[in-house]
């Protein structure tokens, strides 16, 4: 069971959180200007890397806020926690994981 540091509430047990998929997936729009392929990529194409992964979590049973973390999918080591809308943490290499 992971110990995840909420940017507001601090370290809390994984059971308080929900996983929300890869971070930094940009929603294309407006709908009429988006090709089918572009939309399908947004919906379904994910990297699923072995190693560093930038991903969204929500402190569901705490402050209910969304945030991002950088997690190693092999060791579960969490190297960065940052808020929604913020750029990936500087410790994260530029081509880190997510689309």
């Amino acid at each position: 069971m992971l110990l995840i540091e909420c940017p507001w509430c601090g370290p809390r047990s994984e059971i308080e959180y929900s996983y929300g998929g890869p971070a930094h997936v940009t929603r294309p729009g407006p709908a009429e200007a988006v090709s089918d392929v572009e939309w399908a990529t947004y919906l379904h194409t994910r990297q699923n890397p072995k190693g560093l992964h930038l991903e969204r979590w929500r402190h569901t049973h705490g402050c209910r806020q969304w945030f991002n973390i950088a997690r190693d999918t092999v060791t579960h080591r969490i190297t960065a926690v940052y808020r929604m809308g913020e750029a990936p943490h500087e410790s994260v290499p530029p081509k880190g994981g997510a689309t």
Partner: protein
Amino acid sequence: MSGGYRLASGGRIDRSRPLHFRMDGVMHSGFAGDTLASALLANGVRVVGRSFKLHRPRGVMAAGVEETNALVDVGKGANAEANLKATEIELVDGLEARSVNAWPRADRDALGVLGLLKPFLPAGFYYKTFIRPSWDTYEGMIRRAAGLGHAPVGVDPDTYEKQFAHADVVVVGGGIAGLVAAWSASAGDAQVILIDDQPELGGTLLGQPVPINGDAPDIWLSRVEAELRARPNVRLLTRTTATGVYDHHFVLACARRLGAGPRQRLWKIRAKKVLLASGAFERPLVFPDNDRPGVMLAGAARTYVERYGVAAGRSAIVVTNNDSAYHAAFSLRAAGVKVSAIADLRASPPRHALDAARHHDIEVMPATAPAGVAGRHGVKSIKLASVDGAGRLGAASQPIDCDLVCMSGGWSPALHLYAQAGGAMHFDAERGAIVPDAAFEPVVCVGAARGTFTLAASIAEAYAAGAHAAHATGHPSNDGFITPKVDEWPQVAAAPIVELRSARSRGAHSWVDLQNDVTAADVRLAARENYRSVEHLKRYTTLGMAVDQGKTSNVNAIAIMAAATERTMDAVGTTRFRPPYTPTTLGAFAGREVGQHYRPLRRLPAHEAHAELGAVIEDYGGWLRPAFYPKADESEATAVTREVLAVRGGVGLFDGSPLGKIEVCGPDAAEFLNRIYVNNMLTLGVGKARYGLMLDENGIVKDDGVLSRISADKFLVGTTSAGANSIGYWLEEWLNCEWPHLNATIAPVTSQWAVMTVTGPRARDLLRAFDTSIDLSAGACPHMNVREGTFAGVPARIHRVSFTGELSFEVAVPARYGQALWREMLKRGQAFGVTPYGIEALMVMRVEKGYLHIGADTDGTTMPQDVGFAEIMAKKKADYAGKRSTMLPVGRDPRREFVGLEVADGEAPLPIGAHIVDPSEAADTRRTHGWVTSTCFSPTLERPVALALVENGRARMGEIVTLTSTHGRRSATVVGPCAYDPNGERLNG
């Protein structure tokens, strides 16, 4: 006493407290402090179980958690526990144990003859043999013959507890390394938890004592324990097994409790540092007939003498490849057991060992190994042979009489928890063991668990690790620990791990995994058949898959595989260890979350009022809600029919409190909601309500409900009862992640309001029996409007919306008044014949009306255009969640559309789930054209009504379709969804 193997003195048992127990129905006795295994040995019981496949007689081999043979079922009926290790069961008075996989009892097993079949049952035999006509033909027979204990019958009457804990340092293992590590870690104010699976602390020293400061180790151990107990920052958990170490220092430990109250307690501990001092397991030697009852690990034989006061035999031979078994020989000799010889595989055992053996007057035979053991139900004699460094045996000697063979093949660190946590390991030939890699922060191993096999080095290592852990968690440690002086032999280079094999020993079997009947020959067969990967080896031979999970067999198997494939130990590798470390009762994981606590159900504010009315209350999406309100001995169907007709003909009262309610406020609230709903919500006027659909990003209908605008910047989102929580989260996700610039707030208020639905032609009459500030006339508050004010003297919000198709008012009041409002409405409504109705009647009425029920009439493929929203979608220019997906080609393909189905007069309702098929399609390629999603008999129309998703349904109005189900074939006409009052005249009264 049948055997008389109990020693007159010595051991840690309490001879003043005799205990009586039964094994396979036979009464025996033991003492407090015994395990079932030590008590059986004391009573001369040699055969304690049968092997998994071949029913070979087996005896106690070990003295701890690694035991592979002595499995028993304990208790009766619902209290029974299966496959417990006799070495782990603390003896209590009245204990009832049965050997597993044996009938009628272990020493006279009817299927024992299977053992003769071993030559015909090599690894993979089942996979190769039982394939024609199919495995199913044989499975039942094979499963009856094989297998272990019996599952308990009935619900477990015991209770279990869980407990969260938080610690700076968790130390696993209460042996000398663990105690020293806990001592130094807790010298400051670090919170330390020490976990040990035994009733008393001391670990291996309890059974294999080494003098400390010139005394028996007890004296030093009890001083350390007393000091730890006195420290307020230390928690000692004995009788507690650490079953798993998970990510981020999360340790799971299961505590066994004696006496009344919960039987076990599962500790869920979040630590900052984990130190593993779990010791090491002694390895068996692999030689012919090494599974005979009476062939025992040398350390175990010593433990039975020193800890339990039991001699496991009267005449012993010790066979070993290392020093430790010499001490077993000395202990046995001191206890009065004849020790004929120590056969040492090493060509030149170290001088200190030879000197000590001479001192104890025990002959040492270097370069000598066991070549065979006789005695089916217990060792009778052993043959010895010369051996070289590769394990090749020379000519066997004449049999030497003995009834106990003490073997030692070296020691394997117990790295299960370390490996679970992700730690890497390698083989260290010098130590003759698979040891942890040096740097792995999540779990730090100390002592024998690290391959450090002398106490002095273990103490130094553990002390440093404990101090380091304290410092690393911000707790300086500084105390007066005095390193004790330990009188022990130095650690010497280990002998290679080899199978002891003779070119002439055909027919005899050298067992590697005793519990699963896997031999060295099976491992070599796997190698020949190219199951060389250690994971393939495991699955092909079932090695290491039994209750003991290969604690004594894995390393030997890896060595044999390495030799057979001419690879190194590291190249073969180890299988992945997974939690739990040792079998753990499922009840411990369930804890108290069983029965009513399994899934907490929600109660309505008027729960007791419903119960008083005799409502049948059931679980609807996690809420306890009235299904119907039977009068006297009414059946469900009769009650539901009565309730429906009462609503249609007069007035009904329904508790709709669980409907989801979310307040969305702010200058951008309208814009935000417009991006959520398929409908245009910008045009919704103040005081108006609108039915809307929400989609997920795949364009699939997610939820529906009524959105109402309370004021210019305040909306109330109505969701389905099931969606009350999830839609709140979902709205927050959009606002939080996608549109954070929108200025809006979200407040879930579902539980704040009790909602009573008054519906039927006389609904307004009932409301007029109450004082209210709200004008409820048709002109002032028409259908799909919302008003706020007071009702019956309390704040209220009244919606004119309808899920029954009748004139309806949903009256919402603060939940504390819900029960009183329900009672008053029933009381004052008596004059109008008010009838309380439940979910079942509501469902009938909504099917009559063709109202969509999300999740029943829709599924994970349903888009809004399928349920009649095409026009609304076409008109809305703005983007909204899921919109783009509805424009994908899949959204234009022939789609299953929401329609009604009508059957001929006098027919029964259509079966739910019946498929619409085209009989002209060939039977083997016939596909579904849709299915019945809702169906019932309509009391109002006095005929069946049904709703369905039908391919191109709206273009097929009037078509007669064929339906098929397990109830046979039916036909029905495709019609519009609404069967009752299609023009909605009754809504607008």
